[in-house]
């Protein structure tokens, strides 16, 4: 029985646990289609403009930086133009998380990417321990 999860047991074997709303292959056309599906769900074509960022994470050594940059651009382009890219974490309303894993691309939109330490359980636990101390 774990009396206090902050003492290093929960997340013992996990580093990050990132939500994935949708997946596809890593071909450019597939990623564009996926970005449009995700964008349609989270970014209305009218109304209040939102600041957003695209955060790619690579788990595949075969992907070149240029390829990743192209994927990021495709994702950003799928968002309606009333919304703006904003790289400052403190000003971003939404973050599009783009995970390139082997031959798979995974995507989700979250509001609290930086506050949640990129969904890194160990970093969160470390912060909680520091606050407790």
């Amino acid at each position, binding site marked *: *029985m774990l009396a206090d999860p902050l003492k290093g047991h*929960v997340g013992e074997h996990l580093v990050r*646990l990132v*939500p994935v709303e949708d997946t596809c292959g890593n071909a450019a056309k597939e990623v564009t289609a996926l970005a449009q599906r995700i964008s349609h769900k989270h970014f209305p074509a009218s109304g209040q403009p939102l600041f957003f960022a695209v955060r790619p994470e690579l788990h595949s050594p075969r992907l070149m930086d240029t390829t990743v940059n192209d994927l990021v651009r495709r994702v950003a382009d799928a968002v309606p133009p009333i919304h703006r890219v904003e790289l400052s974490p403190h000003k971003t309303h939404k973050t599009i998380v783009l995970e390139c894993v082997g031959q798979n691309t995974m995507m989700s939109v979250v509001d609290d990417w930086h506050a949640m330490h990129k969904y890194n359980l160990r970093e969160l636990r470390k912060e909680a321990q520091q606050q407790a101390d």
Partner: protein
Amino acid sequence: MASPDDFAALAPAIKLKDGAHGYLITLAEPNAWWKINSATEAVALLRTAWSELNGEASAMPNFVPHAILDAPGALFVEQTNDEAAAKGDPVSVAHQIMEVSTFDNFTLGQLHLTLIPSSSTGCACGPAQGPRR
């Protein structure tokens, strides 16, 4: 609680099916022991978070771990059973997990003892050895 069936579902995949949703797990060490324990831990956390969000009596989706062969440091836990999944998207479930303080009574130690695999998984490690630090 996780069951031994979750283990059997730790199926290897190079390419996931398109349109899947779930959770990307990043491992600290890409070895078999770590994969199995991470899958166990993730499924248990996901089920606990699901119950926290939807109540014990709610229908639970299936959480199916996949080892992604061309990305050894990553696992994908697919959330299936759309009827149940409609009640909680991966983002809200993952967010719940990040709120580690809700898991005061989490019994991960019991889960490990229950779910250490038989020879069918090909893992030579046992519960007494644990992961190397």
